[in-house]
């Protein structure tokens, strides 16, 4: 599949499409943003330490969203921080990806019914990979990141659209005034 599957010539010349070359470069140098929210952030850190060592995949944390192209949502997103998550997402350099890590970021997790918890980060930003678990093991996060690499390698640049944060979820509304119904 893609570039690695192409026919390799003896002189180390590889033939592929432009899509393949660009996607290879992008998928092998994903730079995540340093943004830990809750419990999952500790396991996210553990994924970058000697036992699992995600550094060897070419992933290095960047402290500024302008220099990063991947955001790992590692924890519960509540209504107070949702606007910041949205803004950080908008500040990421295009093309950008989001990994939702753990039950809380996926759908609210054990705190789903709470009055100030957003029921999944995909209500406010588009998500590429969901990693289940509470919290997921570092190995689980690593597999999620590998899945994201495969996903990037399959992209067709021709159909690519700029990605924007979602707007139909009012993160500033308080319960009872947001027009939503209680979740169960």
């Amino acid at each position, binding site marked *: 599949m893609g570039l690695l599957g192409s026919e390799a010539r003896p002189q180390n010349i590889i033939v592929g499409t432009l899509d393949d070359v660009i996607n290879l470069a992008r998928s092998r140098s994903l730079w995540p943003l340093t943004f830990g929210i809750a419990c999952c952030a500790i396991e996210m850190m553990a994924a970058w330490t000697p036992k699992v060592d995600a550094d060897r995949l070419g992933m290095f944390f960047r402290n500024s969203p302008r220099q990063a192209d991947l955001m790992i949502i590692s924890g519960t997103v509540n*209504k*107070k921080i949702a606007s910041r998550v949205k803004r950080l997402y908008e500040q990421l350099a295009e093309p950008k990806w989001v990994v939702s890590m753990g039950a809380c970021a996926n759908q609210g997790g054990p705190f789903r019914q709470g*009055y100030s918890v957003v029921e999944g980060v995909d209500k406010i930003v588009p998500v590429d990979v969901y990693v289940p678990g509470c919290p997921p093991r570092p190995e689980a996060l690593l597999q999620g990141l590998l899945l994201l690499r495969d996903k990037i390698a399959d992209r067709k640049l021709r159909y690519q659209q700029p990605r924007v944060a979602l707007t139909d979820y009012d993160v500033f509304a*308080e319960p009872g005034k947001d027009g939503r119904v*209680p979740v169960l």
Partner: protein
Amino acid sequence: MSLRFKTREEFDEVVYAVHPEDYRPLLEQLKGEGFDYPRNLTGMDLEYGLRVVVHLTRLADGAKVTVYTDVPYDAPELPSITDLWPGFEWFEREAYDLVGVRFRGHPDLRRILTEDHWTIHPLQKRYDTGGYELPGWQPKPWPEVADWEEAPEGDEGGEA
């Protein structure tokens, strides 16, 4: 003037049920007795009013006291005790934010955990877990004998 309160022993601490007007004088007295460490301040909703529970300890000998008082829904006000124990500054802000007790004389009584523009106090029992008002919720009547009053038949004031 004597303070209106009743004491009882519960496990290893002395529990004071105090009239809201004597809440601060009693705590001033306890501060004078050397209770210097602020352990905890809890605000809670009892469905007839709001309760504030203060837990204190004395570092010297480890003695522990609990003080509580109730205020009605229509006037949920208590004097602040942040000048006695500055450690209660955020605890009072939290009790205001989540339960709705207003502390007079607090230096900076803003919401702390929820957002500034919210109007609900989500830990009140009139709201469900999601913060939506429960349909048909009615407050209970104020108890005829409050915990700090002498009961007519010598009945002990019970905890909710």
